[in-house]
């Protein structure tokens, strides 16, 4: 087994895995530790396995860039609205500086990447959120880019696909961020009126204002396995009801059981599933 080999190599090199390594910053360096099964994994094996643990199947959180590589046919992605200027509507202390530092550090422009691309030759407009950028929170830039992308889909009569990951509204922008929920949902209504296909994909974690807007409004709603999906965060609910939440609460499988998503799709099957759905909507 790969794992045994890795263990052997690991022992031979005398490397000790770091304790408490988080999934988010695991994919740096040569070795990574799965935060679910605690196995030490060789980074390349994880990458080749769609950033899914080869041992237990845990879907690690991935960047928008990597997601686009996994989903969009090579050489077909055309990014849109890459350099949207930031706004600071309530003049929150240090907000713009924080964003600039983050852009510098992560080389990510914002919490969503939008563009045109092809999936097995099927043209789409795609938006991919990125949890590495302020927890994928939705401020005016995120709301604006998603709305523009939806409007592009309407203009070009193309299907719209969005991969969601978000902590909710971006509080640093006050009410302007809350209103992005109304703005994006109104754009989804236009997409619906235009008779165009809207596929949304929940990935871990998607909560708050994104769950309560475009993410829940797909014609077809997919989810990666075991993704946390909810309106209220688990901690808020625990504080409200004063008890521990049951195992698996607010996970993809729970939402499937309760009728809120169409299908759970493993990451390795995501591209072909999307292609299949797109093909079936061709006329």
């Amino acid at each position, binding site marked *: 087994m790969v794992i045994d080999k890795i263990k052997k190599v690991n022992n031979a090199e005398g490397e000790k895995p770091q304790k408490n390594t988080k999934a988010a910053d695991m994919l740096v360096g040569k070795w990574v530790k799965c935060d679910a099964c605690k196995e030490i994994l060789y980074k390349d094996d994880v990458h080749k396995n769609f950033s899914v643990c080869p041992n237990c199947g845990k879907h690690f959180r991935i960047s928008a860039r990597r997601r686009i590589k996994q989903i969009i046919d090579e050489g077909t992605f055309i990014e849109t609205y890459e350099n949207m200027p930031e706004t600071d509507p309530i003049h929150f202390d240090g907000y713009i500086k924080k964003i600039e530092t983050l852009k510098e550090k992560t080389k990510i422009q914002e919490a969503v990447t939008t563009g045109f691309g092809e999936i097995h030759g099927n043209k789409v407009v795609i938006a991919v959120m990125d949890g590495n950028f302020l927890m994928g929170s939705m401020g005016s830039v995120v709301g604006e880019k998603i709305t523009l992308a939806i409007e592009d889909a309407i203009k070009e009569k193309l299907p719209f696909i969005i991969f969601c990951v978000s902590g909710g509204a971006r509080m640093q*922008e006050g009410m*302007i*961020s809350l209103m992005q929920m109304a703005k994006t949902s109104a754009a*989804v209504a236009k997409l619906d009126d235009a008779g165009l296909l809207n596929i949304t994909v929940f990935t871990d974690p998607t909560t708050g*204002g994104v769950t309560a807007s475009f993410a829940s409004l797909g014609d077809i709603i997919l989810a990666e396995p075991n993704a946390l999906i909810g*309106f*209220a965060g688990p901690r808020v609910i625990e504080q409200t009801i004063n008890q521990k939440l049951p195992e698996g*609460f607010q996970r993809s499988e729970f939402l499937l059981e309760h009728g809120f998503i169409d299908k759970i799709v493993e990451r390795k099957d995501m591209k072909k599933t999307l292609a299949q759905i797109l093909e079936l909507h061709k006329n």
Partner: protein
Amino acid sequence: MSKKTAWDIVMLARDAQRPKAKDYIESIVDDFIEFHGDRAFGDDKSIIGGIGRINGTVVTVIGQEKGSTTKEKMERNFGMTNPEGYRKALRLMKQAEKFHRPIITFVDTPGAYPGLGAEERGQGEAIARNLMEMSRLKTPIISIVIGEGSSGGALGICVGDKIAMLENSVYSVLSPEGFASILYKDASKNKEAAEKMKITAKDLKELGIIDDIIKEKDKQEENLEFVSSELKEYITKTLKKLTKLKTEDLLDLRYEKYRKIGKMEE
């Protein structure tokens, strides 16, 4: 009046003595008849919905109700709406569209209910659907924040052609206490947060989020009568303008109203 801090206004907005949706409905809607249920799960008492006349015009009224007595507060879940509440509201709003009735919504909630059942029954989906459907309902909508408009739980019934706020109400992305504990890592900085967040009627009008401010009296006990009469006048005047518009123009203007919030030049 201008001496009040944002936190003073938060306190007024949450004041137990403050008139609630039910009080305003009783006072300004003639022949009101309440309708119940979402036709799927239950009847959420944090939302009052029904039809009646305001100055002779038949309207559908949707109001979040926190309750006044302890017993009523419990029954109404302190104005914290569950998914079936948003779905009842949407059912009644679609009915309004069918019968060409304008819709008036009164917003007053500490937030959508963050409970087990609410999540099981799709709180996120319920709010999302309201946002999408309200954006394209073919009938005029006036939304009025009468007390506490907190988070997506408020927005779920607040996608109006015109949004007004009572002078001493607040509308925010989350509570000042929540904002302070998350962004300042100190829940006791709630007053500072309230100021910073721009949640008062005056601030939100300047930010272009709301359209109008409805005056209040400083003495809470004078407010039911005074505000009711202001509300009646505001609704009558605003409906007159909105009902003159062709449906197509009404919907274009509504889309543009939300479309322009947070729009930047590239």
